[in-house]
């Protein structure tokens, strides 16, 4: 056993901020909740002879447009993060505003799709899964949107974020990417896989 050097840590030492790490850990856990839904969905699909059942065909055009919007918003939000790292608060605000707009369009598109689909939550087991999974994801998009709006609200004060202090911005970005990745899986399962 070696004697460690005495570090004179003073009373006022502070530990670094681990919120990003905490968020990542949380998202790993969260993705397993989606994992549970995905597994359930694949289970039902495996049991069924016809999937999706006749009366519940999914439409593809609108969701594809929606997907493109959501996926590209992930790039947009990244520009915002890059901007604040260069201490460009204005740029950050611009990109985050665009992202928020895209997120809102996505949600509206989702609502529009719900209204026009012609079947509801309780129609059959496919529609059960469809609404539950997209709805649950939509809830996450909504939360992500609130986070982005929160960042925008706080960044009104010019000194709130800068090149070295922008954890909130980073966390909103990470969350948004997460929502995006989940959507890609969802889209493959619910839309693309039902076509083949």
């Amino acid at each position: 056993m070696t004697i460690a050097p005495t570090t004179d840590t003073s009373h006022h030492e502070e530990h670094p901020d681990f919120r990003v790490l905490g968020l990542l850990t949380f998202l790993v856990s969260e993705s397993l909740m989606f994992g549970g839904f995905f597994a359930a969905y694949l289970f039902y699909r495996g049991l069924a002879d016809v999937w999706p059942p006749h009366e519940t065909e999914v439409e593809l055009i609108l969701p594809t447009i929606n997907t493109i919007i959501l996926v590209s918003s992930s790039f947009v939000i990244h520009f915002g993060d890059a901007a604040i790292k260069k201490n460009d608060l204005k740029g950050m605000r611009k990109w985050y505003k665009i992202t928020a707009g895209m997120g809102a369009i996505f949600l509206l598109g989702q609502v529009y799709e719900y209204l026009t689909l012609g079947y509801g939550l309780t129609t059959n087991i496919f529609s059960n899964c469809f609404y539950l999974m997209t709805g649950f994801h939509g809830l996450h998009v909504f939360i992500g949107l609130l986070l982005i709006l929160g960042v925008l609200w706080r960044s009104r004060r010019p000194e709130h974020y800068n090149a070295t202090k922008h954890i909130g911005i980073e966390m909103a970005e990470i969350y948004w990417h997460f929502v995006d990745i989940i959507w890609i899986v969802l889209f493959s399962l619910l839309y693309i896989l039902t076509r083949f």
Partner: protein
Amino acid sequence: MLQIPVSLLTLVAGITVTLFSIWVGQHHSLLPVQASEQAPLVDNFFNIMVAIATALFLVVEGTIIIFLVKFRHRRGDDTDGVPIEGSFALEVFWTAIPTIIVICLGIYSVDVYTQMGGIKPRNSEQIAGNLNKSGTAIAATLSDEGGDSLQTKALKSPTIGITGENNKKADLVVDVTGMQFAWIFNYPESGITSGELHVPVGTKVKLNIAATDVIHSFWVPQFRLKQDAIPGIPTTLGFTATKTGTYPIVCTELCGGYHGSMRSQVVVHSPESFENWLLANATNTDKVTNTIALSPEEILTPYARELGVNADTLAAIHQ
């Protein structure tokens, strides 16, 4: 005085523990009588596990007690124990031994389970078949006959459960339906419906098990066999009774307030008395023809006496 070497003591202790454990394994008499072909298989397996468990338990507890006595703290001794942090050899040893034990147990249990008729090659084919069918490409082409294939699927004999058909098909098939809180047995060949299961001794029997409301579970302790009755998923249980007598049928899956009273009996007849029972009950055939059209109460009332429940209770639980 002659010093007995420790290794000799250990050897003697080892032999004693082994012999004692084997004896316990054979003589514990914890299990009820054996009345099916599978029962001895299960029991022999259990006896071996009891022997191993007894040995492990005695060794671990014995060691602890010896250590407690030997290394107890003595008054006035302020020193600490010997500075040992581990021993690689010992650790490998006590990882390896349990590994070997559990691998042997694992292999043996697969063997026992196969002998019980729990695994059949047909099972795995069917699963592969199901997976294929659900492949999307095929599903698309099949989509027009969706209704049809559903039908055939339901007609296929269930593949979940111990079929007991390793080499020979069953001679007697009985359809079993579980419902709150009774079992209904239907003999498709003779059309008899009964609240008790009657089977001839020494005959391969296959139960096709279904449930109408919630999950139930069919258990005959003397057969050592159990299978859930699951709404929407047909299951099966195959056995050959080896001993005449009357044994309880117990529902072991929580199915509501009166789960505990969901009991019936299996009567294992000699072949002749089974024939007699069949003849005597042939008149019974239309008693319950269409179970679906009746309320559970109506179905159950004729069996109330056998179920040990009176009609009022039945009415009360099904209001």
